[in-house]
């Protein structure tokens, strides 16, 4: 029996897809499902094997003050980094989107943090934040301020990390705004000038709405990053002091590999997966429809 040309395309299609499918199922789909299942089981020990315990893990999570702390930190981290880095990215793009001396150097300066690993960035910034001998305390010292343990104080540690993250991310987002600005016809600006609109008005009523699709794209990336970016915690704070800078993914790492509580780590991962799924849905059903420029 010979397959027709039409039937062969199914065979060929699936054959070509096989390597990718095996890898994706093994490392994305299967672990996602397994995480969900494991979150309903107890921690197995040599004497007592793991058994089904229903929502017990979720119950202890709801009673775990560190979990709520970490979730709150993640929220503040997102709120602190995202609007600031987007505003800065737009400002940077507007500043360099013109003929000016040293433009390529300026662009390079903005973009360079993007290609540095977060772990190296943390190493560099660690010294800025070091109490007394660090660069920030040195500069403040010239103005007569006393030294401060920026990373050791629960009230300043999260802002300190937020500033560093903004530095790392703003230049990356800038390039998308630059690309978008270059696609906006210059006639718009000229028309606005003839109409007597001032530049702030022009930005608010013309440029910013036109940049909306870019902002959406950047926003999604920034939100994802705020949940995935924890590398710096390993160098700067280890989530401390007293979990003041701990983030969800870092807490998952700690639960699994420092406290060896795999079922609890799975339960926390389910929360993270839920947050990501919610974001995907928002992106799909709300933002995509509303923001596309009419």
């Amino acid at each position, binding site marked *: 029996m010979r397959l027709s040309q039409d039937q062969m395309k199914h065979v060929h299609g699936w054959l070509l897809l096989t390597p990718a499918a095996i890898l994706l199922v093994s490392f994305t789909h299967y672990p996602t499902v397994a995480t969900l299942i494991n979150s309903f089981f107890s921690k197995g020990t040599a004497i007592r094997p793991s058994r089904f315990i229903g929502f017990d893990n979720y119950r202890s999570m709801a009673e775990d003050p560190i979990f709520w702390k970490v979730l709150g930190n993640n929220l503040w981290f997102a709120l602190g980094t995202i609007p600031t880095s987007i505003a800065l990215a737009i400002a940077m793009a507007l500043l360099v989107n013109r003929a000016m001396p040293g433009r390529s150097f300026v662009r390079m*300066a903005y973009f360079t943090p993007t290609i*540095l690993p977060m772990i190296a960035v943390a190493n560099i910034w660690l010294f800025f934040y070091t109490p007394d001998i660090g660069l920030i305390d040195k500069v403040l010292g010239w103005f007569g301020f006393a030294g401060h343990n920026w990373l050791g104080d629960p009230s300043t540690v999260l802002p300190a990390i937020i500033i560093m993250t903004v530095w790392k991310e703003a230049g990356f987002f800038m390039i998308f705004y630059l690309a978008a600005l270059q696609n906006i016809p210059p006639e718009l600006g000229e028309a606005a000038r003839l109409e007597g609109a001032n530049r702030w008005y022009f930005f608010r009523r013309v440029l910013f709405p036109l940049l909306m699709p870019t902002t959406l794209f950047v926003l999604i990336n920034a939100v994802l990053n705020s949940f995935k970016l924890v590398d710096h915690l390993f160098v700067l704070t280890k989530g401390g002091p007293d979990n003041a800078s701990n983030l969800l993914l870092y807490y998952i790492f700690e639960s699994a590999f420092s406290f060896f509580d795999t079922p609890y780590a799975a339960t926390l991962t389910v929360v993270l997966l839920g947050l990501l799924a919610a974001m995907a849905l928002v992106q799909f059903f709300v933002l995509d429809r509303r923001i596309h420029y009419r």
Partner: protein
Amino acid sequence: MKGRSFIEILEILAAWFLAFLWILPLLYAFWAAFHASEHSIHFNLLAPLTLENFREALSQAPFLRYGFNTFVLVTMLLAAQLIVGTLAAYAFARFQFAGSNVAFALVLVQLMITPEILIVENYGTLANLGLVDTILGIGLPYMASAFGIFLLRQAFKSVPKELEEAARLEGCGLFGILMRVYVPLARPTYLAYGLVSISHHWNNFLWPLVITNSVETRPLTVGLGVFASPESGVDWSIISAATLLSVAPLLIAFLLFQRQFVQSFMYAGIK
């Protein structure tokens, strides 16, 4: 600055100032790495230059070995990603096979749920495969990249069908068509994806940290993290030197091929 308004000059100054602020942390690390630590703490601008910190960093931790590991990892991973991604993208772009839409949606799931989120389960899987603490183990979860499949599918879809017909008349088989028509025409996409993938995996930290525990497999980022953790008590100038050693290859590549890097990141993001 002739013919510029006052506001414009102010804005250019602001742009420069911001650029200076942005490059400052890196400049400072650079400066510290070439000076003895007592000078970097007191920021003595006239202090003598030295290479001692680099010598110390290299003697205290095997950064050359880490660098080699990273190089092997990134090369192997990119090769695998390109092969796996090209085949899958070809399937999605040119074969209307049964279930292709569902399969594509399932591929895109990985754009949201990236492997670092599933470290707990993936660690278990790799332990079962006996691949813990191997370079292959670091790379395996990333070898099928939804992002790469997506970009290549877009590129393949924009290739005119007539070219494929022509190649078929010349006697090319399925693989011949892929290699002679689609792959050459998607070169810009390959370049963009390649640069993004290299930068991403050169800098990746969390998963490599979880899966490695020896000098023979650790990539640079993990080596640097272990070296510079606060409890290790290594001195600041040496850490700066080690940090620069770790970022140097990628940083130099970036400075040399700035345009390609920026365009690749942009291209990959916008598609």
